[in-house]
């Protein structure tokens, strides 16, 4: 009688999915970590199951895309405390100028992001404010789809990350990853096969317990998945290959303490894969629960304070964990839209438009708030929300070209506005 190698030990109720004590996913988990991007069909996606043994050629940065799902409030994170209209728009929830960690005459970091201040001071963290997109939608689902498709005005049905990877020829099996969620974001939608995982440590097969048995199971599973529905086949083959590749990744030796929770776990795993030189080129990570319509709390207590603390601590840990390896990593945050400039009657914020984008990495031109600030005066707002002065695609384009070896982006970001780069990153030396 053989026993499974990994008898499941489900955490008892009241424990979160990573086994940490706690009440489980927070409150409304609206737009949570499950990843909303893939809610609908992409015709013909995922039919490619190509597997290469190595990742020759690619010498650019590992690109980490952190999606803040639900509508991140960039006006809380990088608060325009110097804007004359700011405090009046948010009588109960504004970050007081006295509490903000001042960045320049206009902006201050939310005090809960204090872990990021040293990175700012060291020039490894930058911000772009008032970043918008062509879509005017204030629907989560539509705005997210449009942002991750990144091809407004076209009929393309793939995501920008997939198209980016599609220009790089043969890819290693772990080149494209969604970490922290079993479901891939829509940015990865398309023919390039990505691997989705909640955690590396849970990505093991329970059946075989010896090398010989592994060969037996893998052979049978690969044979079985040579037919059947294309999505089932592709996912099955990707699972077998990824299990084998991840077996070769050294055990975790994190050099920093990550905050408890799915975001910290995902960034910890991402760092582990970068350190292992596992052929990773793109890592997509979701962080949910930003849809704060009601009861978001104040700068010193409550929902937003807690979420920003987790975010800042996780990003800072990631940077510390990778140390000098951060010179080959660029992390960028995206969110489908920002929130309204003024608070609503529930102590929260309804859906808005433009937002702050955070950039982290060795190549980032940090310590600066990039972009043109449109102001929060009544006549300056866009239907009650911060107006967008920078299209998010121009930020992505600069990162892809200067840090990730991209040439022409006409296929990756079609219809890219012809704005000159803001200078948010330096060219890779």
């Amino acid at each position, binding site marked *: 009688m053989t026993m499974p190698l990994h008898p499941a030990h489900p955490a008892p*109720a009241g424990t979160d999915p990573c086994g940490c004590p706690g009440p489980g996913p927070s409150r409304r988990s609206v737009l949570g970590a499950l990843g909303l991007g893939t809610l609908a069909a992409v015709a013909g996606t995922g039919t490619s199951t190509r597997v290469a043994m190595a990742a020759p050629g690619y010498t650019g940065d590992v690109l980490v895309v952190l999606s803040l799902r639900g509508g991140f409030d960039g006006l809380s994170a990088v608060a325009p405390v110097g804007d004359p209209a700011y405090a009046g728009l948010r009588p109960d929830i504004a970050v007081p100028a006295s509490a903000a960690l001042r960045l320049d005459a206009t902006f201050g970091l939310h005090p809960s992001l204090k872990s990021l201040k040293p990175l700012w001071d060291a020039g490894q963290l930058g911000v772009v404010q008032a970043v918008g997109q062509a879509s005017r939608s204030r629907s989560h689902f539509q705005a997210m789809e449009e942002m991750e498709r990144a091809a407004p005005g076209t009929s393309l*049905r793939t995501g920008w990350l997939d198209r980016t990877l599609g220009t790089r020829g043969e890819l290693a099996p772990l080149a494209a990853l969604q970490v922290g969620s079993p479901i891939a974001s829509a940015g990865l939608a398309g023919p390039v096969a990505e691997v989705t995982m909640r955690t590396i440590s849970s990505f093991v097969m329970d059946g075989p317990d010896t090398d010989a048995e592994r060969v037996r199971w893998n052979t049978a599973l690969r044979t079985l998945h040579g037919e059947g529905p294309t999505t089932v086949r592709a996912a099955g083959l990707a699972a077998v290959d990824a299990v084998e590749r991840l077996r070769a990744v050294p055990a975790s030796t994190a050099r920093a303490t990550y905050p408890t929770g799915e975001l910290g776990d995902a960034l910890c795993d991402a760092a582990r894969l970068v350190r292992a030189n596992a052929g990773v080129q793109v890592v997509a990570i979701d962080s949910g629960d930003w849809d704060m319509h009601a*009861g978001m709390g104040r700068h010193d207590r409550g929902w937003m304070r807690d979420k920003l603390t987790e975010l800042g601590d996780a990003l800072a840990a990631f940077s510390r964990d990778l140390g000098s390896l951060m010179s080959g990593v660029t992390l960028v945050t995206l969110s489908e839209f920002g929130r309204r400039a003024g608070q609503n009657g529930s102590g929260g914020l309804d859906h808005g438009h433009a937002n702050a984008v955070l950039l982290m990495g060795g190549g980032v031109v940090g310590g600066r708030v990039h972009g043109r600030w449109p102001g929060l005066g009544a006549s300056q707002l866009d239907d009650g929300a911060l107006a967008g002065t920078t299209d998010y695609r121009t930020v992505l384009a600069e990162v892809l070209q200067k840090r990730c070896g991209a040439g022409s982006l006409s296929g990756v970001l079609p219809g890219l506005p012809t704005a000159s780069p803001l200078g948010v990153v330096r060219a890779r030396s």
Partner: protein
Amino acid sequence: MRPVLKVGRATSEDLDVRSGDETGATVGQVGTGEPSAPPPARAATLDAPAPAAPTRRGALTTVLGAVAAAVGSGTAAAAATGAVAPAALPAAVAGRAERRALAQVRADTPFPTDRASALHLVQRTTWGATPQLLAEVLARGPEAWLEEQLAPGGVDDSFVEGVARRYRWYGWSIPRVRQEVPSGDWELLWDLGSLTFARYVWGRRQLHEVMADFWSNHLNVTNPSSDVWDNRHDYDTTVVRRYALGSFADMLKASARHPAMLRYLDNASSRKGQPNENYARELMELHTLGVSAGYTELDVRAAARLLTGLTVDDASGLYRYDASRHDTGAATVLGFAVPAHSASAGEGHALSLLDWLARHPTTARHLALKLCVRFVSDDPPAALVERVAEEYLRAGTDVVPALRLLFRSPEFWASAGAKTRRPLEGYVAALRLLGVGPDASGTVGLSHLSWLSREMGHQPLAWAAPNGYPDVAVAWQSASATLYRWNRVILAAGGWWPNMLTFRPLRQLLPAQLPATYGGLFDELGRSLLLRPLVGRERTALLGFCGKTESSPLRATDEWLGWRLHHLVATVLDAPAHMVR
């Protein structure tokens, strides 16, 4: 007008009703689709084709454009599977005359009774066919069985009700929960996830369970989430399950006045002067019209104002209309206009808006598309969607007539093989095939089942956003969900975990008289687990797995019938064929 409940094939009365609609009869405030009544002025935009640009991915979010683009693809996929189609019809049946002809075909076409058709019906309308259930359906007759499932009150469900009674809170009202359970405790939320899992596996009202899942996602209130600790179980009973095979207008109004929805989408804290748009937006985008319907931000804000006052009483935790919070100003939402009114009339106007939305032709198409995506294919034929939508309107938003039309349609019968199971369905179906039973007593094993599904990314009721779990294959092309499913199936096949459940000996999957060869073994395991002998690559894979050939003799003492039988069982269930719905 109540729909005519028919048992048996469509009657001439059915045709009369349809032709009545075509002469201009209306249901409620809106027409039944086509030209009968002129649409309200502002709603005219709703009937225009959706713009091409934002429709990118088809099915669930960009409703109308996808339908237009998807004509006939489901039938093409099914042709390859050799499904038995009662009649070959053009994929797009647009005009009135063609629809009448189609109705005639339906009326004249006997409900299929062959095994392959019955299996298709069962796979689509349940959480997974088993040889026992299929035999039962064939003995009863597929049409009669379907009618029983559409009127589930007559189906004995005492077994799973007995399981439900094991939860101490079974039958508790919201005030009772608040009395008995510490404030904010997640006991009921976790329990509801496991009980729902149990209902999927062991419920006998299987189509009702499928529809409960469908509506739980359509009107999603994420479980668990803290705001609904005291009322989510009540939402499940009094909104979703009560109306799962009833009237959508009734379900929508019940959801709008349930404290779970009011808290989840923040209408509870919306008030005049400072409306909260969250519920109003999702009401129009997700619950009724769909995102491409052509409404504007102004419509969303007007709806939010009209819905102010629908809130939750802090003391009792129950729904309350608070007139002092209601915005009494005039409001126009598309073609629905309310003049300035008294505060006491506000609730009535809000409910009228909900009724108007439920009966809007664009809502009908949105719901019809989702039903067709659930039951037919990821890109269902546009003509079928249109007919289901018309039936929904004709029946005054009752879902059963729409489902009956769907299940009798040639497009449904031609769609075998066109749908893919989601991870939870694969797991639940495996447990049903293995004959796993609930804990002998208590609910610990059930809670572990629910937890295992959470790790797989597909715990019942747990989708984190208001739009509910997707139901198209590409959304679930996930290596990790696949791997976790394989691992859970191994543990279940081995009888290891959750080990509080009751397991049947795997030898019961084989006939008492063992086959003589390994080829025969895989015929039998296939029949028990995939409802047909293994074929093609499946045979290659399994014979290779045990290092045998078709003619290798099978002996009762072989390890593959002993301590390794569960490896064979799990591997058969890992086959892609198991993931076809």
